[in-house]
């Protein structure tokens, strides 16, 4: 096991830059999740750590070693591919011990390690089958098994669960978490899936357009997104964004929404009088009431029951707003609703730069 240190790494294909100056330090045993929209460079970064892509500039260090010029085989890392990349002409057993054979591991030890990994993953009965005879979930396990038999310095995962159905994905997610708890191997995990990111990560790295936007614990990113991008990307249902202007009224700080309504600003928020801002509020923080106990009035446009709770889409004078409530509400469309936006739950971003206002 080892730490992974990425310093000032850039990547261009020809003249097209895809990664701009990425800095990231991953501690020994940490589980880091890379998230971001499609094409933002997550896979590219992962593949550079693996040695499958050249590094245009900067340095990547695994443990104490700079690995920029090392071939993948000399980096002592394991990777799980989205396509699993199982060797179709080899049995499950041979898929799993291929790396050990390459390292001339003694046969007994190899048999021992493989059967241990197989029983851990519930693959005992499949060892002599070819990958094509396995289901998607079983293939996924083989891909995992192939990585863990090696006891590598680090695991790299590139959307390993995205070809599975929802149930299986949940199950494998839990298994990956347990595996990491048991083995404690440093891991980098690329995903599109909010839930995977939130549940698996020690820290999340949110990327956009080849630039790291924010690095932090899942709750950091959720509760204190540094910019509009992170705020909008993390969380489902997505955060509400409302255009507004900051007003300093003597000692009092106010936010004037585009509808003309004013609400108190969160305590300690910076910014200057007249600054155009965007106000974010998560749906579960919007307080609604059918008894007209609120600051503002709106009406129900759509109700989405989710089982766990309900999403209520509100129409108001100037903007649409989603509210998430735990109760099973079933308002008819058009019902008048009062709502409140609690000051302490507001996220304020500069409208031009999209950055969170300093506090």
């Amino acid at each position, binding site marked *: 096991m080892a730490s992974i240190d990425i310093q000032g790494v850039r990547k261009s294909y020809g003249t097209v830059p895809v990664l701009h100056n990425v800095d990231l330090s991953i501690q020994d045993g940490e589980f880091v999740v890379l998230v971001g929209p499609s094409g933002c460079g997550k896979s590219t970064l992962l593949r550079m750590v693996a040695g499958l892509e050249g590094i245009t500039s900067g340095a990547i260090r695994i443990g104490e070693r700079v690995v920029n010029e090392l*071939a993948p085989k000399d980096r002592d890392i394991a990777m799980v591919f989205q396509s699993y990349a199982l060797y179709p002409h080899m049995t499950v057993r041979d898929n799993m011990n291929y790396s050990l054979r390459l390292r001339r591991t003694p046969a007994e030890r190899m048999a021992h390690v493989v059967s241990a990994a197989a029983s851990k993953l519930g693959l005992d009965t499949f060892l002599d089958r070819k990958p094509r005879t396995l289901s998607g979930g079983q293939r996924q396990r083989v891909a995992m098994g192939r990585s863990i038999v090696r006891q590598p310095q680090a695991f790299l995962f590139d959307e390993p669960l995205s070809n599975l159905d929802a149930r299986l994905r949940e199950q494998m997610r839990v298994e990956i978490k347990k595996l990491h708890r048991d083995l404690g191997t440093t891991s980098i995990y690329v995903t599109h899936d909010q839930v995977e990111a939130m549940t698996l990560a020690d820290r999340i790295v949110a990327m956009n357009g080849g630039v790291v936007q924010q690095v932090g614990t899942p709750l950091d990113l959720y509760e204190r997104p540094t910019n509009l991008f992170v705020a909008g990307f993390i969380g489902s249902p997505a955060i509400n964004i409302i255009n507004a202007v900051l007003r300093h009224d003597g000692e009092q700080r106010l936010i004037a929404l585009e509808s003309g309504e004013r609400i108190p600003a969160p305590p300690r928020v910076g910014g200057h009088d007249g600054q155009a801002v965007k106000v974010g509020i998560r749906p579960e923080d919007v307080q609604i009431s059918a008894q007209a106990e609120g600051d503002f009035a709106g009406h129900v446009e759509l109700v989405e029951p989710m089982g766990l709770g309900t999403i209520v889409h509100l129409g108001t004078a100037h903007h649409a707003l989603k509210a998430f409530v735990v109760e099973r509400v079933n308002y008819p469309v058009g019902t008048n609703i009062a709502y409140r936006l609690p000051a302490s739950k507001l996220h304020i971003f500069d409208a031009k730069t999209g950055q969170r206002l300093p506090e």
Partner: protein
Amino acid sequence: MTSSARSTSHWLLHYGLLAFYVAFALFPLYWLLKVSVTPNDLLYSEGIRLWPSRSSLAHYTFVLAHSDFPLFFKNSVIVSGSTAVLVTLIAALSGYAMSRFDFRGKMWLVGLMLITQMFPLVMLVAPIFKLFSPLGLTNSLTGLVIVYTAFNVPFATFLMQSFFDGIPKDLEEAAMIDGASRFRAFRQIILPLTLPGVAATLGFVFTAAWSELLFALMLVSKADASTFPVGLLGFVSKFSVDFGQMMAAGVLALIPACLFFLLIQRYLVQGLTAGAVKG
């Protein structure tokens, strides 16, 4: 018209057309066979009968027992077999590079390989002869193998490239992460998966080398290094054009090429399917 009547007529048309193709493809081969079993005295008198009134295998016995044909045949097998194996090895390497690497000069290589397809090889006869004779490569099977290998590598490279294009890159990347060098990943993971492509290339090159006449004629003047196409041409002069024997030799010569081809034609379509659309 009911739909079942329509689909019946559709199938009739389908099979009818296919029957036409099969007949067109096989009839000339049938005629070759027919001439080869026609005794000499009936060759012209029954020239256009679909099957002679008497048939005999005399031409075959003569060709096998009293001519140099078995020697030519052996030479051809050696030359075509070695060429096929060599070309497939070399083209597997370069086809892999074309499929997997982006390297400087790649377009030049493609250009070079295309140019080799664009002039009549006749032009090369004299220069190659001059190059080979001081090296002792004329009148030798080795010389022929070298020439045929060079001639077939460009097309075989394109063919192998299209086969490799059909195999996901992930596989050798996984192998490289598992601890294999790229070359080992190529040998242990990618090549085994390209076996149909390898078979197709082998067969294609074998048939091409099997039928080459020009260089076989120009680089070799002695019978003991002649291949069978040259030997076949020999029937024309030596035996005052004994057509029966020539056709018998021709039929015999067809056998290995056809067998090889029948084995591989399936893979040819399969393998090309993967790479065809990418071009």
